[in-house]
């Protein structure tokens, strides 16, 4: 605290031609900080990117011989499921844990005490989720191609399906993640409180285990949540057409998938608006 510091110039009083920085610019600034923070957090990177890749290799190797039927390859089946799980991991799981942490350590309160527009905060999260989810998906496709000779689809129709499942799935999961961040009572409990149900959901939704192997009642439970539909949508992208016969409904059910994901997006949005708090309850 050197005393020789001079305060820069005359104090600029408000109203004196000083305009508030725009929400768009600050949203992008928030996004930059969010992405930087994420990639510097080695634990988060290992957990969010490392875990699904390793699981994809492990599961594919372990269940390899059983899965192949109807011309479906292991790579196709598990890559599709793991992409769905990966999207939910970067959107739902990471957002819920990181926002719970920011609420507990006071960063949210601190931000809300500045003239930062609140939309800029959510825009920043959106940028971070988009960057991480795209990176995760590219990584999992690369692992699939490298280990299991996964071939990328060539028909534009499949890429269109991929695009809307990806966008709707990550939107629904991100909104649910923001809402779920209010559930843990502390940052320390956020990890188990969020990860446990997410892990269960991955088992029953056809991510860790082929969906056709999952017991009937578990499939029913899973069909109430978005992950099952995201995994099914991704299978319709990466698996051959005849594999639709292996689905419980005997078809890919694109219409229903879109409806369920849209419904969850709407529900997530309402939950966020009703439950989001800038301060921890204490």
């Amino acid at each position, binding site marked *: 605290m*050197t005393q020789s510091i001079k*305060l820069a110039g005359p104090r600029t009083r408000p109203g004196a031609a000083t305009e*508030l*920085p725009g929400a768009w610019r600050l949203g992008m600034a928030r996004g930059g*900080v969010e992405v930087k923070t994420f990639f510097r957090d080695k634990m988060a990177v290992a957990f969010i990117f490392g875990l699904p890749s390793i699981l994809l290799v492990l599961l594919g190797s372990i269940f390899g011989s059983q899965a192949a039927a109807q011309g479906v390859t292991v790579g196709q089946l598990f890559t599709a499921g793991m992409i769905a799980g990966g999207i939910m991991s970067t959107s739902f799981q990471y957002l819920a844990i990181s926002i719970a942490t920011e609420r507990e350590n*006071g*960063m949210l309160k601190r931000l809300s*005490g500045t*003239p930062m527009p609140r939309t800029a905060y959510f825009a920043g999260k959106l940028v971070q989720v988009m960057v991480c989810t795209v990176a995760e998906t590219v990584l999992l496709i690369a692992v699939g191609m490298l280990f299991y000779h996964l071939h990328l689809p060539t028909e534009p129709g499949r890429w269109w399906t991929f695009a809307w499942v990806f966008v709707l799935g990550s939107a629904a999961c991100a909104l649910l993640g923001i809402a779920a961040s209010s559930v843990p009572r502390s940052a320390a409990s956020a990890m188990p409180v969020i990860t446990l149900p997410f892990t269960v959901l991955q088992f029953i939704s056809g991510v860790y285990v082929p969906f056709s192997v999952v017991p009937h009642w578990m499939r029913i439970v899973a069909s109430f949540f978005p992950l099952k539909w995201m995994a099914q949508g991704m299978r319709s992208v990466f698996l051959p057409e005849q594999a639709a016969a292996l689905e419980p409904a005997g078809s890919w059910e694109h219409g229903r998938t879109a409806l369920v994901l849209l419904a969850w997006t709407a529900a997530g949005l309402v939950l966020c608006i009703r439950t989001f708090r800038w301060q921890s309850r204490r």
Partner: protein
Amino acid sequence: MDNGAAVMVRDLRKSYRHVAAVRGIDLEISRGEVFALLGPNGAGKTTTVEILEGFRRRDHGTVDVLGEDPARAGRAWRARIGIVLQLSSAGPELTVLEIVRHFAAFYPGSRRAEEAIDLVGLAGQAQSRISALSGGQTRRLDVALGIVGRPEMLFLDEPTTGFDPEARRQFWQLIRTLREDGTTIVLTTHYLDEAEALADRIAVIASGLIVAEGAPDTLGGRASAAARVSWEPPGGARRTVETSTPTATITELARQFSGEIPGLVVTRPTLEDVYLDLIAAAEPAAADPELAEPAPAEPAAAEPAPADSEPQALS
């Protein structure tokens, strides 16, 4: 009304589930003033300040901060105030310079990040990660984030908790610098010497009410309070008298001893004496019917409760 007081509060009240935290506070803080809010934990300091900062809603009363009602004020108002929060140290994986620069971008006409960092004495740590800072350095970073927007009004909640004595002195110097710059400053503190060194005016808050208000040297009738004159008669025990006319007492003693008074000491009450008296006098108010609520602290004191019983500590 914008050219009037920086803060104007009338009959502010706030309860949490029937427990009255603030029971009718009036405050007026002038522009450019350094105002300290003193009081024990749970007295209503933080509630009051958080209402002024726009973090909490009030139940009753009028509040005006820089010409606006904090409960309704928008971004333009936020750009004119700075808040130094009393928070935990865990922060994002950013360097000091990165986060201060990031916060600077929120404000129109902010300070340069480097200047704010220099002002709080963190220039040597500008490139350090937040996670690598010591407790005192983290608090300084909190201050840097509070002043980077060049606020007209700065709120500081227990700003020097965890500072070593030297850091506190440096911090005081910073407050004086900001004050010379025309910044209105509201601080809450536990440290009486800090309030005495920095504040133009002090308000003592106890049990949700302001029990005294004034300049540090006149607070609670300190200037006119009885002085204590004590001396040591030869061969006798030390004697002490309290008097509002100490000069007369000393003249009388000087005549008695015909010259030097042995072991003469004259004291006025310190700010701490005044403060502790005020807080003690306010205590009975906690038992008054307006506050009648099954406060866990009261029965616990009456019963022979085991020292380690801390209800709901884990829930």
